[in-house]
């Protein structure tokens, strides 16, 4: 209590003192006819000019320090074929941008020092100069033409791959990734969002899948119906049957609406999916697919095309080490083709990566100790993360990616299950021969 009173007194006194100061200031400025705020004194002008120089050194020094310390970004060399091209293009761009950054900012900060006000010097009355202006319109235009041409060549190479390679589907939903390998036939089974159920999370179209979704829908309708029934009372008013519910109106409406929607969904599956489909072919296409969660394995030096789908909102598949990224858009399929060139193991043997991860382990475990969690060893891994705002756990929507030799891959994929529940068998080199056969065919 006493403390609060003291603080109160101090505040009041402070305000009073401030008011007095203001009054004194005002009186003096009236007396002097204060123009001091309009005129910058030579001393002030000089100090600001010098500060521009100081600031320039600080800005340049800071930027160069950051370039040396963090310039490589910590991702290491690009681990895909096209990634190397992107990095080369990036370096090319930096060589244009950095000189512009330093020279232009340099001029901007040196001019204030050189040309600070000097009453003895009369500035030149320079209105325009066609020759100069032509030069600095055409020079940027030429440089940019180079940037555009180089950039578009790279872009077209990446976006129009000659060969699709092995097909994998990446399915995004709040907040995890599922990968579906296309199996021996390199064809993904068709899928439809209406078939998504707990046991068929990707909505793959198979005879079983359709039956299962009917079952799920029917069970849900029954459940809702029975809830409604259990909470309803039938009444006869004027010989007319009416139903009253013990539940709030909103709840009843919501449940009835859901029943209607489920019925519509069932009808749509029947009228749409079932009629169009070639059951045997579709089932066969889906049967050898392999669905995996948690981590995804890829074979080194092999071309992959990822097809991206999303269940709910926009997501974005971002493989920082592969320099690959593509949005996952509900209602449409997007794709990205890439060819990993370095195995996870080789990457872990890279000198830069070893040093870098030594550093990361130190920092990582410092933090773990600080927050009282168990220490752990962190090793390099490729990663897939979400890069489009998607909700509460956006910052933890990730999947580990392993790049390995074909033999290692065989071991791993054969420990997984086919979509039809069977065992996966992978023949080394099979895909390669198939590709070759295709090429000969063409």
């Amino acid at each position, binding site marked *: 209590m006493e403390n609060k009173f003291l603080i109160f007194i101090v505040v009041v006194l402070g305000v009073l003192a401030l008011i007095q100061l*203001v009054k004194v200031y005002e009186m003096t400025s009236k007396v002097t006819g204060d123009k001091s705020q309009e005129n910058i004194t030579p001393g002030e002008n000089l100090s600001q000019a010098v500060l521009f120089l100081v600031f320039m050194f600080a800005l340049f020094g800071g930027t160069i320090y950051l370039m040396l310390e963090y310039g490589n970004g910590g991702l290491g060399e690009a681990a895909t074929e096209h990634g190397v091209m*992107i990095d080369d293009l990036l370096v090319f761009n930096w060589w244009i941008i950095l000189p512009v950054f330093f020279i232009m900012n340099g001029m901007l900060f040196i001019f204030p020092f050189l040309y600070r006000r000097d009453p003895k010097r009369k500035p030149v009355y320079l209105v325009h100069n066609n020759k100069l202006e032509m030069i600095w319109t055409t020079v940027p235009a030429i440089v940019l033409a180079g940037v555009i041409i180089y950039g578009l060549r790279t872009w077209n190479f990446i976006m129009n791959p000659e060969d699709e390679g092995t097909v994998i589907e990446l399915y995004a939903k709040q907040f995890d990734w599922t990968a579906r390998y296309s199996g021996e036939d390199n064809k993904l089974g068709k899928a439809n969002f209406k078939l998504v159920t707990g046991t068929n999370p990707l909505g793959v179209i198979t005879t079983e899948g359709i039956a299962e979704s009917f079952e799920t829908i029917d069970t849900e309708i029954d459940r809702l119906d029975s809830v409604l029934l259990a909470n309803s009372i039938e009444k006869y008013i004027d010989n007319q049957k009416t139903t009253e519910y013990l539940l709030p109106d909103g709840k009843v409406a919501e449940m009835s609406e859901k029943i209607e929607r489920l019925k519509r969904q069932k009808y749509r599956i029947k009228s749409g999916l079932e009629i169009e489909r070639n059951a045997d072919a579709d089932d066969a296409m889906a049967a050898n697919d392999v669905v995996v969660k948690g981590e995804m394995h890829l074979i080194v030096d092999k071309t992959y095309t990822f097809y991206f789908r999303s269940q709910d909102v926009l997501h974005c598949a971002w493989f920082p080490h592969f320099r690959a990224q593509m949005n996952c*858009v509900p*209602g449409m399929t997007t794709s990205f083709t890439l060819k990993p060139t370095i195995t996870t193991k080789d990457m872990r043997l890279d000198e830069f990566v070893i040093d870098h991860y030594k550093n990361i382990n130190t920092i990582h475990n410092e933090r773990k100790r600080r927050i009282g969690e168990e220490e752990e060893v962190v090793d390099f891994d490729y990663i897939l993360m979400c890069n489009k705002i998607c909700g509460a756990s956006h910052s933890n929507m990730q999947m580990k990616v392993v790049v390995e030799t074909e033999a290692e891959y065989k071991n791993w994929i054969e420990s997984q299950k086919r979509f039809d529940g069977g065992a996966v068998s992978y023949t080394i080199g099979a895909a390669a021969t198939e590709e070759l056969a295709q090429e000969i065919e063409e």
Partner: protein
Amino acid sequence: MSDHGHAAHHHKESFFTKYVFSQDHKMIAKQYLLTAIVMGIVGIALSALFRLQLGWPDEKFGIMETLLGSGWAPDGVLDSNMYLGLVTLHGTIMVFMVLTGGLSGTFSNLLIPLQIGARDMASGLLNMISYWLFFLSSSIMLASLFIESGPAMAGWTIYPPLSVLEETQPGSGLGMTLWLLSISIFIASALLGGINYIVTIINLRTKGMRMTRLPLSIWTFFVTAILGLLSFPVLLSSAVLLIMDRHMGTSFFLSDITTSNGALDQTGGSPVLFEHLFWFLGHPEVYIILLPALGISSEVIATNSRKPIFGYRAMIGSILAIGFLSFIVWGHHMFLTGMNPFLGGVFVFTTLLIAIPSAVKVFNYLTTLWKGNLVFTPAMLFSIGMVSTFISGGVTGIILADAALDISQHDTYFVVGHFHIVMGMSAILAMFAGVYHWFPKMYGRMMNKKLGFIHFWITITCGYGVFIPMHFLGEGGMPRRYYTNSEFPMFDHMIDLNVVISIFATVGVLSQLFFFWNFLYSALRGPKASQNPWRANTLEWTSPVEHMHGNWPGDLPVVHRWPYDYNKPGQAEDFVMQNVPLEPGEEEH
């Protein structure tokens, strides 16, 4: 607007018609500025809060719980949904309320009539309605921070389906409804303002004020208003479509979605359509923010270099070119949406074209400074700072415009660093420059220059200290809009960098107190300003210090020359105002 109108204004005004429902452009400008300052305080305070989270994700901050309540920050730990809410509202408030409404609203309103020699805006009534809609829209946006389910949380770009489906995010309920309502009202305000600016500039220029004698500030306000008029309706229509998707079961932007509510009925729409509509506004919006900033800097730099602006016609050409090009580049925000790669290539081309007029502008600024007689008023410092950020942020745009590079930079902190420097900092610095420069015109008093110096140096240091390091986070692959990076040990080597950024951000935010104090104190108690404190040429400095309806007593000034006759050979003074007749035999320029 004739002298008849002027005479009619002489009746005594009540408090309400003078200060609240005023139709005088100078009062409306001040209303815009004050509202923008309040919104600015909120906007940067939100960023300070989420910077605390990003800098020290393991710490507890009592202030979070105090400000956000125990629901959103239990025990001082920020909730991850609320983090997205803070990010969303920070972006929305800064982009729309502060840098669009605030910047254009303040300076277009203040300067257009005064610099072209008009008694007031073409329609004072529309002008007043425009401000009050802006006020209403700002109030609704603020109110959305206080509702139980939280404000909009889908990012300032509110991409569907996240912004449509409440089950995917709590902020997509009432919070998003308020966001859409607020922005729709905001657009109405911007359109009314914009029409008014355009009509006033075209019709109400005083005698002798040819388009080629307009100060560059007016040219930028003019092109800005046209951009707004052409692009804001598109955002309004997309907001309406979004509202229909949210509440009426349409499917403009939705297709093939399964949520916790099961498979949705909506099929056939596309979220990419929304992105196209959004960025059709969103990219011109960048220049709606940037052009007035460039215009303000042009005035301040010419005046305080005591030299004509270099390449006046080239500057106008650049403004027009930038304005035109800004409409055909929106796709560069969407390279990775599955867009046809050829279309992507077209957008690469158009986007990089913008670099040419931008480069011309920068060269012209540098040549204006070259061999000038530079006077470092606070406004001049901020304007030079603005040119610096325009350069530093502009060059990294070359990387992001390159679709192939966008693959490895898109939505990383590189983007955040880039646009905050080139658009955020540039516009904010120019806005400060404008306030310091035209404060005497607004309040008839001077701001304190020493506080202005301190304010500038801390602001630019902290601004660069925050956003340059972000480029390096981005090079490390760090995605934006992550609540925490702790789930990814691969980012651990950049923990320090995030701490540094947060420290700069906090200091930068706190240093704005120098400005607020200076602003409030000077508005009430600052020394009285003389009529033309900066010895400038433009017409606003021929009007009396004390505000009056109709701006000039007696006849309107007549213009005889362009606005940049500084240190013209053969003249005694180092400046010749626009209303001074040419001497016999004198050439215009």
